[in-house]
């Protein structure tokens, strides 16, 4: 299932980065991203996601290991890497005073497009990202979603082969987030390789064909979202036992019905157990609980999500929210 190293759009091997006083930001990062796919770097704050992107986008030099982006070495040939990539960082890196069109034209000129080509490109990108109506308004009046779309448009001026998105939906409302997700999907469909970092499990699940789970500067697990979930095991049944009922007795009944060892959480008065057979097992359990006279408050079948993967494979729970 692993990406063939020779034609990987992004290939990192044993990349290390050490910041004086802060310790290792990257401690042997390995990454191989197939062309034309959306690959997620998922991890908690401080896992090294942003450092990885900054090294691959040639903003920061690596201390050890090697990395190639679009076939060019980031350490020895950063100029050629820069000509092939687009970067959208955590903050929309836009000029707030200028209009969307002026931003696009300015960055297009800095990509060394001639004046007329820059104007045409700006117009085409404004149309593609549905920003024509606001094209001549200052960016500081844009909504968060519009800003992100413009930021994406700017990062695509050169028709990048590889696009780096550092937490593309942080701080966006759900509607804006969907807009950005759609834009990312369209990009991948048109052949762009996208590497995105995220703290949002849902985002990685919905967008990425493969995910590298990062913790403390290295990849601790890699695979498709369903592969990662499969590593945690199948679905689990959860039963909430009403107050006043014997937890151990209930666990016994559940164990007998499911032929599996249950886990008991006395504080929440919940019993959970792995289950095979889906809805059939639910029916069996319902009969068992009924026969035992145990009126459960809540019975649910829960499929594992990336949260479970995360808890299982990293040091602690993922912290959603602000920060890098």
């Amino acid at each position, binding site marked *: 299932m692993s990406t063939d190293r020779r034609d990987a759009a992004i290939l990192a091997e044993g990349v290390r980065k050490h910041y004086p006083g802060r310790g290792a930001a990257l401690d042997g990062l390995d990454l191989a991203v197939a062309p034309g796919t959306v690959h997620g770097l998922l991890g908690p704050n401080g896992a090294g996601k942003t450092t990885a992107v900054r090294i691959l*986008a*040639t*903003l*920061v*030099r690596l201390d050890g290991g090697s990395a190639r982006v679009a076939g060019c070495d980031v350490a020895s040939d950063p*100029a050629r890497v*820069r*000509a092939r*990539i687009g*970067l959208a*960082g*955590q*903050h*929309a*890196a*836009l*000029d*707030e*005073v*200028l209009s969307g069109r*002026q931003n696009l034209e*300015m*960055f297009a*000129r*800095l*990509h*060394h*497009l*001639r004046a007329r*080509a820059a104007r*045409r*490109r700006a117009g*085409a990108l404004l149309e*593609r990202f549905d920003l024509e109506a606001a094209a001549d308004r*200052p960016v500081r009046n844009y909504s968060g979603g519009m800003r992100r779309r413009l930021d994406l448009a*700017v*990062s695509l001026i*050169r*028709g990048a082969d590889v696009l780096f998105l550092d937490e593309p939906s942080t701080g966006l409302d759900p509607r804006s987030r969907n807009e950005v997700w759609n834009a990312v999907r369209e990009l991948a469909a048109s052949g762009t390789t996208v590497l995105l970092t995220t703290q949002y499990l849902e985002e990685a699940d919905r967008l990425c064909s493969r995910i590298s789970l990062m913790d403390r500067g290295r990849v601790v697990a890699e695979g498709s979202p369903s592969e990662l979930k499969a590593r945690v095991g199948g679905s689990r049944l959860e039963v909430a036992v009403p107050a006043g009922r014997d937890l151990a007795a209930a666990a016994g009944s559940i164990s007998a019905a499911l032929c599996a060892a249950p886990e008991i959480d006395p504080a929440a008065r919940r019993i959970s157990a792995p289950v095979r057979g889906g809805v059939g097992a639910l029916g069996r359990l319902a009969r068992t609980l009924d026969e035992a006279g145990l009126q459960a408050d809540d019975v649910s079948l829960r499929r594992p999500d990336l949260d479970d993967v995360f808890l299982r494979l990293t040091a602690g729970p993922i912290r959603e929210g602000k920060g890098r």
Partner: protein
Amino acid sequence: MSAPTVVAASRSSRLAWAAADTWVVARRHLWHLLRRPDELLGTLMIPVLAVAMFGFVFGDALGAAMAVPGTEYREFLLPGLFALTMAFGIGNTTIATAADVRGGVLDRMRSLPMSPVAFLAGRSLADVLVALVELAILMGLGVLFGWQWHSGPGPVLAALALLILLRAACSWVGILLGLLVSGPEAAMKYFALVFPLAMVADTVVPTHLMPGWLAGPAGWNPLSATVVAIRDLFGNPAGPSASWVADHAVPMAVAWPLAITALCLPLALARLRGLAR
């Protein structure tokens, strides 16, 4: 939609591209001026208020101390305020540069195939062009307040060139500081430090009226050389020549800004390269 082809930059055309990139960056800052003219007014507020305060509130008193009438003090004052305005530009440059570092605009530019020097040089070029506008407005106001030049177009242009040279040097100081401070808020906190630089100089009060321990440093303040030189070039009254610098004002008004630029420009470039560490 196909991506545009890009003109390949050969080694020989790299300088031309650096110049083109510089102009693109400079034009960005000039667009700011057109879109937010109130920022220019904010910058001019200090010198304009200074004309009113020093020229009229303290004017007669300072004039009396110098044994000249208040009107003549205002002739003395205006060249000082021109140079002071150039020095206050450090604040704007620092804050704007720090904001570009913080906001990610610098990172984006560093990820482009553009010349990284252009990010700095464009800022400096824009500062100089904006300074021309500021000087035109200030000189117009000066004339309203009773200031005028008493020399031909040659010396007046030379005086303007010295002021622009000073602004260019201040711009590189601001760029370096902007790359060093932790953010635009920190830059604003340090802004007050421009005041001693601007006041402990032959700008508002003639150095011979300062305490002796202050007069020495004030004379060696880079602003003093420019101010003494342009007072002479405009044909405006000056305080009694009291220092070696004042006796060699024109060469020093060239040497100081060049020395400051020669110090700050390479440091700023090194800092820019150091960001990749």
